């Protein structure tokens, strides 16, 4: 019973921790502009994150390899370092955006000054990581993120056009000229990237090692990644539906976090508003912690320093200093006054460029029978994995040109 309970909590934490600020920004806006047409990207991105997370879990359980151990071994120090640098720049930018997002939500809930919230919440998050063991960090934020299910209730209560919604799962192109098509492609790449953000696999892979997974944990790994992430994807899809059913008919483009909470307020009044804000607060704060720790995991794995929250900070001085520095750096960026929503758009688009560099070595090693033995990728996993890798590479090549021609999703 205890094991089933632990598995249940793990799946729920994966569900609640699935959405981050990138998805909040891209999905609702995509729904507002293209109604249900981009739902298929949600499915595609979710298949991708399930595939790669499950592989990372197996790599953590069998050969006990975390992502940046693999990247250094496969790429060597030069290309490996470029990957580390690019990944951590994206991590710092994402963490800055998440911190800014949390400060905005705190302000919407309690008033006060944005900069003071930013400093206070960074201190609270640092304190939380120092005080709580890894499992609790993962579960506190993941489980409280379940409040985001409010958006699923809002989506259903808005009575979406179910037939149109079902059609959204089949890829099709919008009418309205080349510029509109480019905007559609920009949002497709944005949603795809926000679902596959590299920090998620760094964190998941390192988490497996933190929790000392063995081969006996592999069924749990499979269930957590498949069920937990699929349920999380329902929240992402609900955000698109809310965009399509509430914002699109009113020609509203919810470019601010607060604007995304207008639909729950409309549907369920003050209770809906507060639940939506609390859900966003939990999930975005959880993602800030994950990005920050992911950056420190990457650095220490690459340079072979001792790492992990399972060890005391005295045993892992470089790891502890690194994640604190990442938090402070992210806070510094946000304190300069850059709009967190703009930062998140940059971080999501830059992240897609890092994705092929991250996923190629994972695919190669997880498929290597000399390392994985009978736990190596099956034929189906290899086919799906390399297909997904090809899609990620296409998205990576298109991301920055699309960002420029659509002026970050504003022109179309």
């Amino acid at each position, binding site marked *: 019973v205890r094991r089933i309970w632990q598995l249940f909590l793990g799946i729920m934490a994966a569900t609640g921790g699935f959405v981050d600020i990138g998805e909040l920004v891209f999905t609702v806006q995509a729904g507002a502009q293209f109604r249900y047409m981009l739902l298929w990207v949600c499915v595609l991105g979710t298949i991708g994150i399930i595939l790669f997370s499950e592989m990372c879990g197996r790599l953590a359980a069998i050969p006990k390899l975390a992502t940046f151990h693999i990247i250094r071994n496969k790429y060597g120090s030069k290309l490996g370092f470029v990957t580390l640098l690019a990944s951590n*720049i994206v991590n710092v*930018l994402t963490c800055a955006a998440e911190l800014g997002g949390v400060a905005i939500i705190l302000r*919407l809930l*309690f*008033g006060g000054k944005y900069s003071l919230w930013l400093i206070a919440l960074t201190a609270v998050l640092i304190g939380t990581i120092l005080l709580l063991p890894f499992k609790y960090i993962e579960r506190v934020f993941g489980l409280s993120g379940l409040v985001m299910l409010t958006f699923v209730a809002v989506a259903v209560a808005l009575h979406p056009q179910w037939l149109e919604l079902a059609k959204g799962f089949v890829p099709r192109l919008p009418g309205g000229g080349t510029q509109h098509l480019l905007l559609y492609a920009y949002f497709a790449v944005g949603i795809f990237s926000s679902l596959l953000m590299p920090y998620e696999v760094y964190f998941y892979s390192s988490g497996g090692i933190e929790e000392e997974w063995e081969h006996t944990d592999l069924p749990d790994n499979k269930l957590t990644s498949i069920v937990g992430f699929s349920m999380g994807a329902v929240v992402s899809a609900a955000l698109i539906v809310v965009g399509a059913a509430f914002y699109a008919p009113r020609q509203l483009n919810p470019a601010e976090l*607060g*604007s995304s909470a207008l639909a729950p307020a409309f549907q369920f*009044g*003050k209770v809906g508003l507060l639940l939506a804000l609390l859900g966003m607060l939990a999930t975005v704060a959880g993602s800030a912690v994950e990005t920050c720790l992911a950056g420190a995991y990457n650095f220490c794995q690459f340079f072979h320093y001792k790492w992990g929250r399972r060890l005391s900070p005295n045993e892992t001085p470089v790891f502890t200093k690194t994640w604190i520095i990442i938090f402070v750096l992210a806070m510094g960026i946000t304190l300069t006054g850059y709009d967190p929503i703009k930062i998140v758009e940059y971080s999501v688009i830059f992240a897609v460029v890092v994705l092929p560099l991250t996923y190629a070595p994972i695919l190669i090693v997880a498929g290597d029978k000399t390392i994985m033995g009978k736990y190596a990728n099956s034929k189906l996993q290899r086919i799906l994995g390399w297909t997904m890798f090809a899609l990620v590479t296409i998205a990576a090549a298109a991301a920055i040109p699309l960002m420029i021609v659509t002026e970050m999703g504003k022109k179309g």
Partner: protein
Amino acid sequence: VKIALPLVRAGVFALALALAGCVDQPKKLDASSLKAEVQNAEQVSREGEMLLELRTAGKLTERFRKVQELYLLKQFDELKKTADEAKPSAEIQSAFEDYKQKLQALEAALRRIESEPHKEAFEAVTNDLEALEKTL
């Protein structure tokens, strides 16, 4: 240190480069960029309208409403700044003047949102801006 220092410098440079992109540059306005500005102004007006609707229905907390209204004003200030600094091309000069007038009406509606919450003021501005957008 020999290896780390240049690499850290490269990282800082890349980060600075990325953030530099976040800074808005003064705009040269042509018909398509003016249309984008008009659409942004429409967004502010529609959101003001929605805020008033929800406020009247008692569906917003006081803090949320105040902060969200401040965000709207901030967005409006950005629009106004862009309009003040913009260099419109000759063929859109009259449309641009028209747009600036609509911005004044939007500003008036936003400034009165606290004391005189009239949804109709926003509706009128939105309609005017939509009409202007169609001419571009």
